[in-house]
């Protein structure tokens, strides 16, 4: 259902953030699609905001930072592993600060519903020195966004807005504020000492950052978005994010301190809450982030058993933690695993790779499913873009007969995201046996819901733009051989081309171009639009 704006709506956390961005007059939202964050910018664009898909999260954060240097309110939105890609500018953005406001959204995925790891990005707030807010549901997502802007604008510091799968993808009722925020004043002012992080400028910048954080910690003590519910004196629970809702259902009688701002911590508030309570338990998903900090601050708070570090929390798991129950949990009933769509063009490629018994350095996307039976045709998958570097490393060290069986396989969106530098490495430090890279170009970012990227020639808002030509990029980067394979080429021809490429010492790029079935209708319509003469006038 397309989102219709109203005063009161039943919407996802992602949509709530987009509506908050609109109501807060965010000038620019940039990101890279990734479950569970993709709907933030899609919705923002759909309701009239300016949202962009950048080639990757690092670039998205840099674009948003530039907008914030110009005095605007800007958002960079990504999934948790995306912040690894963007970590480089993120850490230094905390030093430079901003003129306007920069909010960095990290959508974490505890339980790994669709991710390669379950890292807890609350660690990033502390590591980079960025204040962090953790909403529990859609209404808080909406409300906390304004708090994030308030902090970002008052202290000129990037704010980490940490959501989780169950906040992003759970719907609840959101009531909007009456009037949008007045827009900030835009305009560039030089601040070279503040923004050019050569060591001489960075040293004082680090001190400024720590001073800001001390002030923000003080603000958090008195005015932070933290909620205290007084209940039984026997049990006090400290919690944050969606865990708070599980806690209220599992232990309605307990006293609860819900921290909305979990970095920097409001330790005085925590101590005041704990005073006189018989037992203090910290309930948090993922790493013992709050537990460690609170215990290090001298409070005898109990955490959870190690087994609850894995996966999401739920009402029943919170009940177990409070009961001190660390007995094995009942195994979840087996569901049906995901698989390639019927008729997916990737199927043929992985049938061939599997049949030829190649060593496949894979990457992140729908095609990662090539690891599953019946294909069993992927040997590694680490992070976006890793297929090329990993494939090259294997080529460098394996005995020649094995090295000649190594191929790297990457999707089109992933190639634009972080395959380009891998390709530069491939040309720069070529293995003796050469190498073969397959770009599986299905014309879309299929895995996260059919988003556009620099290789599709369309923007997030469906406007035609420059299309990255993978074959031309391959030639420009120094590939010796560049081929294109489509469904029109027979499987035998495709297999022969692979065999010949593996036998040579060339650097070979093969673009396997077949549109994603789910996107085919949209892609065909665009083909027609491109073929039609422009309207007169």
């Amino acid at each position, binding site marked *: 259902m397309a989102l219709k704006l109203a005063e009161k709506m039943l919407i996802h956390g992602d949509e709530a953030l987009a509506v908050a961005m609109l109501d807060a007059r965010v000038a620019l939202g940039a990101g890279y699609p990734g479950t569970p964050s993709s709907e933030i910018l899609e919705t923002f664009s759909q309701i009239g905001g300016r949202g962009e898909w950048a080639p990757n999260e690092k670039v998205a954060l840099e674009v948003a930072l530039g907008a914030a240097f110009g005095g605007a309110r800007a958002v960079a939105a990504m999934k948790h592993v995306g912040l690894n890609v963007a970590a480089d500018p993120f850490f230094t953005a905390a030093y430079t600060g901003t003129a306007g406001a920069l909010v960095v959204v990290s959508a974490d995925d505890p339980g790994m519903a669709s991710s390669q790891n379950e890292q807890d990005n609350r660690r990033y707030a502390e590591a980079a020195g960025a204040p962090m807010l953790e909403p529990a549901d859609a209404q808080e997502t909406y409300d906390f966004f304004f708090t994030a802007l308030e902090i970002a604008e008052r202290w000129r510091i990037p704010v980490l807005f940490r959501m989780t799968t169950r906040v992003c993808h759970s719907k609840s009722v959101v009531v909007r504020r009456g009037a949008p925020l007045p827009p900030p004043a835009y305009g560039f002012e030089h601040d070279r000492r503040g923004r050019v992080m050569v060591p001489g400028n960075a040293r004082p910048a680090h001190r400024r950052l720590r001073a800001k954080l001390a002030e923000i910690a003080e603000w958090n003590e008195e005015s932070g978005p933290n909620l205290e519910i007084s209940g039984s004196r026997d049990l006090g629970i400290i919690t944050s994010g969606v865990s708070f809702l599980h806690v209220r259902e599992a232990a309605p009688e307990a006293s609860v301190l819900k921290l909305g701002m979990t970095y920097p911590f409001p330790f005085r508030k925590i101590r005041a809450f704990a005073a006189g309570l018989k037992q203090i338990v910290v309930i948090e998903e993922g790493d013992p982030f709050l537990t460690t900090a609170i215990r290090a601050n001298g409070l005898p708070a109990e955490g959870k058993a190690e087994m609850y570090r894995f996966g999401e929390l739920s*009402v029943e798991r919170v009940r177990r933690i409070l009961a001190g129950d660390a007995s094995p949990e009942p195994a979840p009933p087996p569901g*049906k695993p995901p698989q390639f769509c019927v008729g997916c063009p990737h199927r043929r490629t992985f049938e061939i790779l599997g049949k030829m018994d190649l060593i496949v350095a894979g990457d992140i996307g729908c095609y990662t499913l090539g690891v599953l039976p019946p294909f069993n045709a992927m040997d590694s998958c680490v992070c976006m873009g890793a297929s090329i570097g990993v494939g090259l490393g294997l080529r460098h060290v394996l005995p020649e007969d094995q090295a000649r069986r190594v191929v790297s396989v990457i999707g089109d969106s992933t190639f634009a995201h972080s395959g380009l530098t891998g390709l530069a490495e491939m040309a720069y430090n070529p293995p003796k046996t050469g190498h073969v890279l397959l770009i599986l170009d299905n014309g879309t970012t299929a895995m996260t819901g059919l988003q556009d990227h620099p290789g599709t020639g369309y923007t997030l808002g469906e406007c035609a733009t420059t299309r990255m030509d993978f074959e031309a990029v391959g030639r420009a980067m120094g590939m010796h051989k560049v081929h294109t394979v489509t469904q029109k080429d027979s499987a035998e021809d495709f297999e022969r081309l692979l065999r010949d490429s593996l036998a040579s010492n060339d650097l070979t790029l093969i673009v396997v171009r077949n549109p994603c079935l789910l996107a085919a209708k949209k892609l065909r319509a665009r083909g027609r639009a491109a073929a039609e003469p422009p309207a007169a006038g």
Partner: protein
Amino acid sequence: MEKTVNVKIAGLGGQGVIRASDILAETAFRAGLAVKKSELHGMSQRGGSVSSDVRFGREVLSPMIPAGESDYLVVVSSDQVENNLPSLKPGGVLIRPEMIDENALTNKKSLNVALLGALSTRLELPEALWLETIREAFKPELFEANANAFRLGRSAKE
């Protein structure tokens, strides 16, 4: 509605599980109830098992239904019944594809909405409100097929 009602909808990716749960949640929302809905999507669900939790009533806390506390379990694919049964509470109601005469569907893809029809006779939500949200959930040309599926579901036998 004193007590929170928990409905789990399950099936396979592409069967309209999320759409069905959106329609139910929106109907409860328009009936003036507190509602929360939780789901997972992304590649992990492509062609694989999908489920969505809808909870509504006077107050809803967690967006997820605690294990074994679903009042209703609606399953769009027969082969997904067994692995979802543990979510149903003792005495809870299972609504499954066998209750619908699929040959009577104008559009086979409307099985999800037919099952909502079967669910609707057990909930205190007005039929007109259901049809209103169904109308807004689909393109205009698909409304009749889905409205027919919903009515077919309402006359489904146990």
